[in-house]
C-alpha cells in the first residue's frame, strides 16, 4: 500500500498544472485546461481515501507531463488571438 500524497504535494501538482495550462497560446485550449484543472482538483478536495488519492496523484502527474509537452507544441504553432480576447495594444512607433 503506497502512502497517500500529502496535501502539500497535491497543492504543488495543482499549481504546476494551472501554470502549464496558462501557458497554452491558443485561447480555447488555455481556457479549457484551466477550467478542467480547477474542476478536477475541486472534486478531489474533500477526498480522504488514500488509495483514490494516490491513483489521482499518479494520473495527474502523467497528465501534467503530457500537458507540458502539448503546451510547448501549442506555443510553437500558436495562432492569432481570437476576437474575444484582449487584443495586443497596437504598437506605437517610439521616438528615438
Amino acid at each position: 500500500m503506497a502512502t497517500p500524497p500529502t496535501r502539500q504535494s497535491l497543492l504543488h501538482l495543482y499549481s504546476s498544472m494551472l501554470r502549464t495550462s496558462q501557458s497554452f497560446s491558443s485561447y480555447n485550449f488555455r481556457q479549457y485546461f484551466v477550467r478542467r484543472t480547477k474542476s478536477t482538483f475541486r472534486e478531489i478536495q474533500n477526498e480522504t481515501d488514500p488509495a483514490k488519492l494516490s491513483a489521482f496523484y499518479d494520473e495527474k502527474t502523467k497528465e501534467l507531463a503530457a500537458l507540458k509537452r502539448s503546451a510547448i507544441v501549442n506555443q510553437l504553432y500558436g495562432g492569432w488571438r481570437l476576437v474575444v480576447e484582449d487584443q495586443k495594444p497596437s504598437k506605437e512607433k517610439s521616438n528615438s
Partner: protein
Amino acid sequence: MLSRVSSKAGKTVGRSALRSSVARLAVKESRRNIVQPSGADRASVVDVPSTYQEDNMLGFKLEMPRREGSVSEKARPIYLDMQATTPVDPRVLDAMLPYFTDQYGNPHSRTHAYGWEAEKAVEDARKHVADLIGADPKDIIFTSGATETNNMAIKGVARFHKDRKKHIITTQTEHKCVLDSCRKLQEEGFDVTYLPVQKNGIINLEDLEAAIRSDTSLVSIMTVNNETGVIQPMKEIGEIVRKHRGVYLHTDAAQAAGKIPLDVNELNVDLMSISGHKIYGPKGIGAAYVRRRPRVRLEPIMSGGGQERGLRSGTLPSTLVVGLGEAARLAKLEMARDHAHIKQLSDRLINGINAKVNHVVRNGDVDGYPGCVNLSFAYVEGESLLMALKDIALSSGSACTSASLEPSYVLRALGAAEDMAHSSLRFGMGRFTTEAEVDYVVEKIVAVVQRLRDMSPLWEMVQEGIDINAIDWAQH
C-alpha cells in the same frame, strides 16, 4: 540635442540647402555618448523609386509567414462549427507525435520491433474505440472516416445479400454519403425506402415497422443528425429491427460517438460509423463497428492484403489510429463534463438570443444534442447573415453543402418552409467553446439580425401587420 533642433529647422527651410552645414554642425557639436542614441530623423531616408512595387522585391516574391506578432496582425474569428470538424485536442496530438517521428513501423510487419510497437499501439487504440461504444475490440475496423464506413456498410451488406434481398430502408434526413450510397444501389437495381420524419425530426416508429419487408437487408438510421442535432430513438429502432431476422441495423454515429453515451449491445446495432475528426481527433481516420456475433457479413469495397478482417485492406495509418484511440479514450473520460459544459453553453446561447430577438425558430427536437443548435431567423436571409458575421465561423448547414445556396434538404424534410430553411444558422459548440465566446456571438447576432431586418421590406410589412403568405407576388 542641437543636431535634432537644427535638422528640424532644416526641414522647414529647405533640406538640400542646409544639409551639408547641418551635418558638419552635428559632427562638431554633439558628441555622441552611450545614453544619447541618434534619432530616426538623422537617418537619410529617401523615397523608394517610382518603379518600386509593394509586392515585388526586385523580382523576388516575398512570402511572409502570417503568424502572431507579424506586421499584419489580425484577430481570429470564433469557431462555432463543431459539426463540420473539431480542433484536435492537444493531448491527442501529444499521443500521435511519437508515431510521426521515431515509431514509424508498419503495424502489419510481424518480423521486427518497429512493427510490433506500431501493432501494439493500434491494438490499444482499437480497445479505446471499442470501450467508447461498449463493443469488443475485435469488432472494430479502422477506415478513412465515416463516409467510407457508411459506404462500406450500406453497399457491403446490400451487395452481399443481393441474391435474396433487394430492399434497404433509410431516412430523408441522413447525411449525403448515406443518401448517395443508396442512390447508387438504386441504380444497381435495389429498392430503397426513404422514411419521412416528423416535424421534430424524429422518425415515426410505426412507419419503420411498416416499411420492413421480407426482402429487407438493411436499415440505416443516423443517431444524431449533423444539421439539427436530433437524436433518433435508436434503442426502440433496434428492438423493432431485431424482431425481424436477417435485417441488419446500421447507424451513422459520427456526430454521436463520444458525445452521448452509446452501447452497441443495448441499442442492438449491427454496424456503426465513427469519425475521428468529430471527436477532437485527426481527420482522415474513422472506425466501423461490425458485429461478429451474430455475424454481419458484407462485401468489402477494397480488395487487397486482407487487413482488418479482410473488410478494409490497406496499411493502417498507425499515427492516425493512435490519434483516434486517444480521442476516444478522452471522449469517454470527459463525456459527462463536456456534456454538462455544452448544455450550459447551449442554454446560454438560446436564452440570450431569445431574450433579444423575436421570430426565431429552433429547428429540430428541443431534446436533441445540445451542442448543435439550428436556428431560423425569420425575414433574414441566412447567407447574408453569415456574410455579416465575419468574426464568427458559422455554417447554415452541413459543410458538404455549404458551397451551394440551396436550402438544406434536412430542414425541408422537417417540413420547414422554403424561407425558413433559407434563413437557418447552425451553431456548433464543443469542448473548447467558452462562455465569453457565446456571449460575444449572442451580442453580434442580435445586432446583425436587427440591422438586416431594418433593411428588409418584408420585415417592414410584417411590422405593419401584412400577412406575407397572403401576398400574390406574381402581379407585375
